[in-house]
């Protein structure tokens, strides 16, 4: 695949065929706990998308210009996490200052993004798959949108679940995990359109 189309292919794949949540099961914790309301799900999803796109790009720069030249690739786990934490903190301050509305809409979920493993996961995949800077950025953005899509779908389903009759033992996280499994199977319908490693 030529280098101009490839980033967009990765972008598309990250949303549909290789959805970070439904194929890798990353970012499960907040996916399960925040997907009860459509509005908060959307807010968190957008924040995750934003953080993913930016931190993947920053981490790419840090990895290729700081860690690789000094052969410190093994430090990437620590370094990526520090960068993510600092960046989330920064975003929180900026949002608090300049967009009170968004700050209140996201609330406590904003700082919680730091510990969303999808964010670290995407940075690590980007290294393993040897993406270029542009591809990494689109990979991050796409993964975020894929996560947003998955949590929105889940919130929609859970809204209906409230009126459904669920066996007592499966209420809450149990049924949510089963549904996530079904959703993953449904997304398998996209596979074959594009294959990325």
């Amino acid at each position: 695949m030529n280098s101009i189309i490839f980033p967009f292919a990765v972008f598309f794949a990250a949303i549909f065929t290789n959805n970070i949540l439904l194929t890798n099961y990353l970012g499960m914790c907040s996916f399960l706990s925040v997907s009860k309301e459509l509005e908060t799900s959307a807010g968190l999803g957008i924040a995750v998308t934003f953080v993913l796109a930016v931190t993947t790009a920053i981490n790419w720069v840090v990895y290729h210009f700081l860690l690789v030249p000094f052969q410190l690739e093994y430090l990437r786990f620590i370094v990526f996490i520090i960068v993510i934490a600092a960046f989330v903190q920064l975003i929180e301050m900026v949002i608090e200052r300049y967009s009170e509305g968004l700050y209140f809409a996201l609330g406590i979920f904003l700082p919680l993004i730091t510990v969303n493993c999808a964010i670290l996961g995407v940075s690590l995949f980007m290294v393993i798959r040897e993406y270029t800077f542009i591809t990494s950025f689109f990979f991050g953005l796409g993964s975020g949108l894929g996560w947003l899509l998955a949590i929105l779908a889940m919130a929609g389903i859970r809204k209906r679940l409230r009126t459904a009759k669920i066996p007592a033992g499966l209420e809450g996280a149990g049924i949510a995990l089963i549904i996530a499994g079904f959703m993953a199977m449904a997304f398998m319908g996209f596979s074959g359109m594009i294959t990325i490693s």
Partner: protein
Amino acid sequence: MIATLLISVLIITLIAIALALLMVIADATVGNYGVVKITINDKKELEVAGGQPLLKALNGEGVFIPSACGGRGSCGLCKVRVTEGGGNYLPTELPWISEEEKKQQVRLSCQFKVKNDVSIQIPEELFSVRQFTTTVERIRDLTHDIKEVRLKLNDPPNIEMKAGQFIQFQVPAYELTDEPVYRAYSMASVPSDTTHVELEIRLVPNGICTTYVHKHLKEGDTVTVNGPYGEFFLRDTERDIICIAGGSGMAPLKSILLDMAEKGSKRKARYFFGARTARDLFLLDEMHELEERMENFTFIPALSDPAPDDNWTGETGLITDVVKRMAENAPEAEAYLCGSPGMIDACVKVLSELGMPEERIYYDKFA
């Protein structure tokens, strides 16, 4: 080998410094809200650095709002009415704010950040709250898990309190906490002794303050407290009094009873004290001495689970059952309760069933 090690340390440090610098710059630019003005009760004006929580800003200016958790948003005590400049509620405030309080613009001052000029309303008596530097004069064991701590006030040297009120104890940073935190404790001392404060502190496993007091605090240490706070004090009526306490709930009631004895009160008072076994009872001599000093006072300790070798001859059973059996004067009396939330709720229920109106039941719940 060593070179690699040094380089890795260097790089990590470099990244950390760069990010820390970024945060410092952000804090000074994005997070800098300049100087803002807080107007208290339409008359007092304070100028503080913007961006910090209201509770902290007020503390820095010597205005103390009661808070049991030290500003973590987990006790819900530090409520303040913000009449101007309040803005929206934070998700961390909402669990503590009722619909009624929302209309009154009540905010949780440890969560609400002052970013612009605000006007707030606080009870007048909070102006009389002071911060005291004290020295630990004596620590003694009351039971296997309750210690009595007697503090000598140094600066300012005197406290004006009502019997039954509480103070906040500042725990300095130590192994269980990275920053100083405040915990509320009732004063067990009598108000006429204005130079001392006595606290009764029960060891709670992993409790930040209780562990500090039980394991680290020594006689001669310096302790910072602020107060007095609270609406739990003896009402000036002629009614009979029913006191109920358990464990370290003894403290405010001891203060109230000592105060009554000093003032020569003739009101009929009964004090039900619940414990599990005889080893959980304490201050029995002091209570019997009070019975001598006050003709209408009776101390009724009750054990719920006396051990065989306690040779217990007093009341047995849950404190609620004992109260139910004996408090026949409940409809005319008023009650003062101090203890765990579970005990208080059970006692309020029993007293209501006995015919006591709820507005005459005063209590101090351990948060």
